[in-house]
């Protein structure tokens, strides 16, 4: 009786409150920046720096460095959101966000800056003037400012891509403004390359303040589990709702479950980064529906299985026996000649030796075998070593095998109805 009441409550709840929506949003790239874990010290450092620019008109530059998915952008977003809660700052601070993936050269970057600052040479979202004009205009605008003018926060994501621009003009100018007595700006570069400083030219490097903040995933397995569960929990909001209480209870139960902890441990050893964890949690959340309202340990196991399958073995499972034979022949050739590249003729003669002497299988003619070989080439399981040499017949082009022997044995075991002689041939190269 009680359970059926809860059921009704569940369905009602799922319709009204849309728990799935919120959880899915949490694991997407547009996640609200509130769900941040760790990095109190780093966040404090950055917060102080940006705040000083915003309030006292100090010019700064800083590099935020850390592996992908370690929360660099999220931290900056949360800092900005916290800063603009202050009315004073909100009116004062201007933010310019650039991304190395979008602004692939300085011309586009400059237009984007003027657009985001809404300077006079923009109309709507169109920018007028040539590159030189825009640069001159922008520099003049920044130069005539002093400490009292509005501070600007520049956030350069994928900072290493900006270092590949010609002459690093944009970086030079930005750092130069940050160095000299002009409008106050704070340049924050976000990158995942640890050696990013080495990419900068000497004059650019000398203008950079060499302040670096590292975001390294240095938390333990226990923290990792806690982070995972805190992502699933629903706090505040209408806790009075029975379903949420039940939900949190279930999540609590999950966090103590042995299977779930095993999965998390495995994931932790693979990859400490939170974004990879999101993939698993997103999968778990996607499996929820009216008939299956709470996540179960088996969901986690399933998610782990999907995310950690070996893709090459999976592709090997789908090729034909003839192609499998060719791969085995290539494996033997690589073994015998110690990793030297081989060509089709060698593979064919190796295959012919096997097909004539050992097997009861039909021996296919050369053209059919060549077609199979080309299919492997198209799947990029085999790669030509001398680039795309069109000068040489395809039979004689040198190739190398891109599959590890263990993947071949793995695939052979899983292959449906694999002839025994092929299996034996794979284990010994003697014919």
């Amino acid at each position: 009786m009680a359970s059926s009441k809860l059921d009704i409550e569940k369905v009602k709840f799922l319709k009204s409150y849309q728990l799935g929506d919120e959880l899915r949003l949490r694991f997407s790239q547009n996640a609200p920046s509130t769900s941040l874990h760790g990095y109190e010290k780093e966040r404090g450092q950055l917060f102080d720096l940006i705040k000083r620019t915003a309030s006292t008109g100090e010019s700064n530059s800083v590099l935020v460095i850390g592996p992908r998915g370690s929360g660099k952008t999220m931290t900056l977003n949360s800092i900005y959101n916290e800063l603009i809660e202050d009315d004073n700052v909100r009116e004062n601070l201007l933010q310019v966000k650039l991304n190395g993936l979008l602004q692939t050269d300085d011309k586009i970057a400059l237009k984007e800056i003027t657009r985001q600052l809404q300077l006079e040479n923009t109309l709507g979202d169109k920018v007028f003037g040539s590159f030189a004009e825009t640069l001159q205009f922008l520099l003049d605008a920044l130069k005539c400012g002093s400490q009292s003018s509005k501070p600007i926060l520049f956030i350069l994501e994928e900072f290493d891509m900006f270092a590949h621009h010609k002459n690093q003009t944009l970086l030079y100018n930005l750092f130069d403004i940050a160095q000299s007595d002009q409008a106050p700006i704070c340049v924050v570069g976000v990158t995942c390359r640890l050696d990013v400083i080495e990419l900068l030219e000497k004059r650019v490097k000398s203008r950079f303040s060499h302040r670096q903040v590292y975001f390294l995933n240095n938390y333990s397995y226990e923290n990792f589990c806690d982070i995972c569960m805190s992502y699933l929990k629903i706090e505040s909001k209408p806790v009075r709702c029975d379903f949420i209480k039940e939900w949190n209870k279930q999540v609590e139960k999950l966090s103590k479950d042995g299977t779930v902890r095993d999965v998390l441990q495995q994931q932790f050893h693979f990859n400490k980064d939170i974004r990879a964890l999101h993939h698993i949690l997103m999968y778990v959340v996607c499996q929820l529906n009216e008939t299956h309202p709470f996540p179960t340990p088996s969901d986690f196991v399933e998610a782990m299985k999907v995310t950690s399958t070996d893709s090459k073995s999976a592709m090997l499972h789908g090729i034909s026996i003839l192609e499998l034979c060719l791969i085995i022949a290539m494996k033997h050739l690589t073994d015998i000649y110690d990793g030297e590249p081989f060509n089709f003729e060698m593979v064919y003669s190796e295959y012919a030796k096997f097909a004539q002497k050992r097997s009861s299988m039909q021996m296919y003619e050369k053209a059919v075998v060549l077609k199979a070989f080309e299919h492997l080439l198209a799947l990029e399981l085999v790669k030509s070593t001398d680039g795309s040499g069109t000068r040489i017949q395809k039979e004689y082009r040198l190739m190398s095998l891109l599959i590890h022997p263990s993947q071949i044995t793995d695939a052979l075991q899983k292959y449906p109805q694999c002839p025994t002689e092929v299996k034996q041939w794979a284990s010994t190269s003697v014919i």
Partner: protein
Amino acid sequence: VDNFKEDLNKTFPCRQSQINLLLSLFGQRHQYTYSSLFIYGHTGTGKTAVTTNILNHFKLPHVLVNCVECYSSRFLYEMILNSLHGNSVTESSDLVKCDNMNDFVRMFKQVSQEKRIDQETIYIVLDKAERLREMEMNILPAFLRLQELTQQNVCVILLSEIVWEKFRTGSGYCEPFVLHFSDYTNDQLIEIMMLDHPTEYDENFYRMYLNLVLSVFQMVCRNLKELHHLAKLNFQRYAEPVKTGEATAEDTRKLWKNIEPHLKKALQTVYLREVSSSQWEKMQQSIEAGQPQLYKSLYFLLSSGLSSRSHVELPYYSKFLLIAAYLASYNPAKTDKRFFAKHGGKTSRQSKLLKKHERASNHMLGPKPFALDRMMAIFYAVVEGRVAPTANIFMQISSLVSLNLLGHVASDDQIDSPKYKCLVSLDFIKSVSRTVNFENIKRQ
């Protein structure tokens, strides 16, 4: 939803788990999903069909782009924007123009707001996604991050035959969620091909036939499209004895005896595209029409095929030049004196053995490059009569290069001492030397 699921399972049998997974990942229209999905699997495993069918059925806002068509990034951007906008290609006046990623992201936001789809998940399906690797560096990472860059609910679906590991370069990407469409087993292949069995015959009869087709082809090919095509092509031949009354539908042994050599022939010809499907059909019809003469001539044509029609008519000296090039490519330079000089040294037993070994490996390793001088020397040794080294002779060499019979080996000084490689097979050179009465095999 459940109704649709059943329909979908009927049209795409054996794809149940994949369909369920995709439906659960997509969720409700307004819900977020993975920012990018990477779907891989062999050709003909239903990657594109299943995905687009789901998207079409629920009328989810989506764009389907084939990356082969978009050979420059500009086409890619404009195609996505225009099809989101609902522009047809014919009314070219108000087509969106966009030539870099920055504008694309900005305009994407605009278009989705204009079309009032910014509250729903927009799906961008990129077929043959391996082509994206050859475009500019920033395209693939930017598409994988599109949700973050546009601050909108977008999901990019990449479809490819190549595994995800081959896409990674540089400092890495925002990883997509990787999904595998598994291959079909033999039973599943038959089940799928049964979907359009010819209605005038019994179901079991056709199933039997498919079994036979698979037994011949499955060792070589597990591609559904290819197998389906071959099965369609040869069915009339299989059903013929039943039609004429020579055998009954139950007489499987007789039918098998009848079709087996035919299918094996098909493996060597139609499967390799040496004979076109229409030619193959014509051949089959000629038997039915009772024209053995026509059948014979066609059969001869088929058995000769494309590859054996490789005979090319060449000028007399060109033939000798080609022969000389072949000899120079496949014989080491130190044997030249023995073969081509008038008083060649005698070979000892030992070196004869050595020679045999060399020849085997040479035919395995392919042609070696040789200098022009060496080729000319061999040419003078093999050609009968005096030949002046006129401009014509050298012209013929360069025309052999442009015919792709010889290949130019890249070297620094092209005019001084060019190097060549012979690019023709042994069979070809044999047929050429036969026409000029030259025994080149013995000479080797």
